[in-house]
């Protein structure tokens, strides 16, 4: 274990982490280019690298890209990465009123602290979790995805039905493709291109980025106006830090916890953490208008979730996101055994990944400390210069998934859908969450039915599924109850 840390903090180790973090931040900040894409492109290049160097490079890219996402989210209201969706809510208004450096600085500090907290959990609890790992069968994983799906109800407070509508649409679009249990095609309507269903990247780019480009194109350019009071604002203020100290802790805990749930990851983590922070805050009405608490909640949680998602990857071999799926591929490619036995068979590799997380977090903080004042100036670049390249990057991104035009068409379709949904005030988060989680829930439920001879009973007799089922029922009931009582209050 100490050997792994020495290797990661050696000159060449630090070099790989620095390259990975900087590339990750750059790519993550460009909507259209995702961390997943650059990691997939880097993968063949790492083929002839040592497995440990390759993994710390890729992990550093993963962490860098999560942080990078906050830049475009703050300066352009476009999540550079999926997990920065919630950062747009308060980051952009704060930047818009003339404090882009403060907004970015808060996001960076929050990212660092969230990542460090999750690293601590990864270090201390991963071996423990790995001994429990093989007991996670199809019903256990199914029950966990149900918990995450019920969170949709919780985050849709205030627009409960709209949230459910978005989730239903997301689930619907996840259905076409190969049926997981029979291997035959379903809902492809004879369109050969649909036999793999809709890919996540075109859906995300269309819905969240191109949709926003369409919204932006229709609005007045307000950027240049604010230039006057921008100049020398403080980047990291002690007052902001002090005010948010409990917010940092709470959001990191929530982020890490949700990140650890296999197949869930940073996006949901930041959404949940944001909702909880809003519930706890004395000035909850200020959320969404550029308050520091919103930025801290979203950014602590998404970085904590990113690091947290490495726990199921390392201990269970379950990829919690597109990126961890590629990391899993990298481990397979380097003939490592991802999954329950990594700590048993390749403990050095497991500890190298963990040490790489620590190193990437520290380097991310150092890089962003110096870069933030410069990046903040981008706020005053005319939108007319920024939107065209973003559109181009989106098209490149969608085409690169499988090298076919179908994904570009699909992305354009989802852009229109995203535009319509945004105009109709239907939230996009539940759509994406349901789109990702529904297939996972279905596969595991149906596998479980084969394992347990078509019986649902083990969902209630096995302790772990029972635990998660209880949590999801409580979450769902609480969400519906608070929705009803809120509506009643308004009526009275």
């Amino acid at each position: 274990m100490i050997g792994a840390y020495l290797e990661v903090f050696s000159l060449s180790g630090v070099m790989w982490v620095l390259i990975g973090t900087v590339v990750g931040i750059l790519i993550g900040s460009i909507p259209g280019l995702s961390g997943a894409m650059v990691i997939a492109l880097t993968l063949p290049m790492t083929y002839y690298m040592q497995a440990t160097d390759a993994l710390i490079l890729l992990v550093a890219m993963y962490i860098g890209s999560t942080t990078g996402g906050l830049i475009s989210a703050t300066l352009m209201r476009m999540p550079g990465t999926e997990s920065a969706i919630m950062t747009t809510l308060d980051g952009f208004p704060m930047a818009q009123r003339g404090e882009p450096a403060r907004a970015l600085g808060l996001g960076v500090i929050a990212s660092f602290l969230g990542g460090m907290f999750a690293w601590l959990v990864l270090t201390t609890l991963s071996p423990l979790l790995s001994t429990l790992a093989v007991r996670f069968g199809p019903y256990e994983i199914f029950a966990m995805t149900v918990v995450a799906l019920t969170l949709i109800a919780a985050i849709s407070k205030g627009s409960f039905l709209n949230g459910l509508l978005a989730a239903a649409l997301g689930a619907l679009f996840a259905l076409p493709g190969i049926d997981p249990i029979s291997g035959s095609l379903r809902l492809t309507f004879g369109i050969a291109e649909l036999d793999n269903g809709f890919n996540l990247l075109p859906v995300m780019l269309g819905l969240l980025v191109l949709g926003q480009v369409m919204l932006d194109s229709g609005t007045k350019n307000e950027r240049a106006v604010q230039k006057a009071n921008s100049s020398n604002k403080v980047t990291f203020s002690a007052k902001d830090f002090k005010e948010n100290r409990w917010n940092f802790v709470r959001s990191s805990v929530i982020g890490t916890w949700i990140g650890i749930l296999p197949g869930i990851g940073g996006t949901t983590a930041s959404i949940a953490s944001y909702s909880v922070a809003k519930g706890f805050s004395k000035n909850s009405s200020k959320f969404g208008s550029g308050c520091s608490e919103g930025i801290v909640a979203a950014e602590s949680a998404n970085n904590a979730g990113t690091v947290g998602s490495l726990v199921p990857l390392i201990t269970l071999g379950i990829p919690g996101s597109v990126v961890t799926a590629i990391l899993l591929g990298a481990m397979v490619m380097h003939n490592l055994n991802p999954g329950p036995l990594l700590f048993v068979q390749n403990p050095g590799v497991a500890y190298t990944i963990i040490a790489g997380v620590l190193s990437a977090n520290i380097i991310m903080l150092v890089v962003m400390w110096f870069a933030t004042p410069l990046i903040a100036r981008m706020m005053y670049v005319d939108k007319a210069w920024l939107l065209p390249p973003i559109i181009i990057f989106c098209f490149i991104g969608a085409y690169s998934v499988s090298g076919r035009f179908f994904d570009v068409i699909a992305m354009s379709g989802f852009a229109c859908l995203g535009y319509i949904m945004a105009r109709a005030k239907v939230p996009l988060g539940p759509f994406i969450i349901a789109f990702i989680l529904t297939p996972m829930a279905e596969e595991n439920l149906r596998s479980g039915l084969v394992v347990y001879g078509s019986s649902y009973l083990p969902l209630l007799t096995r302790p772990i599924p029972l635990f998660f089922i209880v949590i999801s029922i409580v979450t769902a009931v609480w969400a519906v109850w608070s929705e009803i009582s809120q509506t009643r209050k308004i009526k009275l």
Partner: protein
Amino acid sequence: MKTFMTALLTSVAMTTASTGFAAESYPTQPIRLIVPFGAGGGTDGLARAIQLSVNNNNLLPEPIVVVNAPGAGGAVGTRQLLASDPDGYTILQIHQEMFAASAIERVDYTPEDFEPIIQVSEACMFVAVKEDSPYTNLDAMISDIKENPGDFRQADDIGGATHFPSVQLMNAAGAQWPIVPVGATSARFTSLQGGFTQLALLSPLWLERAAGQIKPLAVLGDERYDFAPDVPTAKEQGYDVTACLNRRYWAPSGTPQEHIDVLADTIEAAANSEEVQNYLSESGEVLKIVRGEELRDLIDGEYTSFVEVADIVKGSLSN
């Protein structure tokens, strides 16, 4: 880094040593090699090793470019080959996953619609049970399944390349057992360890990787593994079933024969290079070159054996 430098130095040395290439009319532009699976998998690994060897050793005047086109169990990439011009500038590498998709009629093409170039490698699977399983051979396992049907499940990929030999094994044994869809071999292994399934077909690499945690009952190949001579084949135990993933290169139907020959010669030379040999032995696969008429016959035989059990594969739902 060290490995990378070694590979680089080796390739430089080999480039210097290689004899000059006689210029021909083909190829005059880069050749696109479609990998119909994601970055990081076994198909991607071999394709990139071949690409590296061809490009580093100047086996062709033009480079080979690997393009990943993952999706739908290889069908997305295979369709791209089907749609491309038969000019020898687009080729594909895939194993029997192509036959699987055709046999269950998930796609509208068959192996007849393509021109096989060359087979490079073979990886025969083995029948694995958990280490503490009471069985020591196929007979013991199968007689127990016949006595207690319903307690026994296999982890596999429904409709995938290993599902077909699994059904062939059921037929040879005169027994039936449910298949749990878990996916790739690492997931099958995990499922086996968790006790959710009792049997899985694993790739040879897992014999070493999972040593002490699984027990091999039979090799599903014509011969025993060189590295595990104690494990008998299924055939020796009276079950005439093989399950080998054969990695092959394909061109669109109608590609000129002389181009096919150039490609086959090039890929064969690359396959015999040190880089590819190393890659194969690290992945637990063996070099097995098959070309021309012999390859066509092999493919026809395999495809027919897939089609024969396709109805059972399609109908093999849970219990």
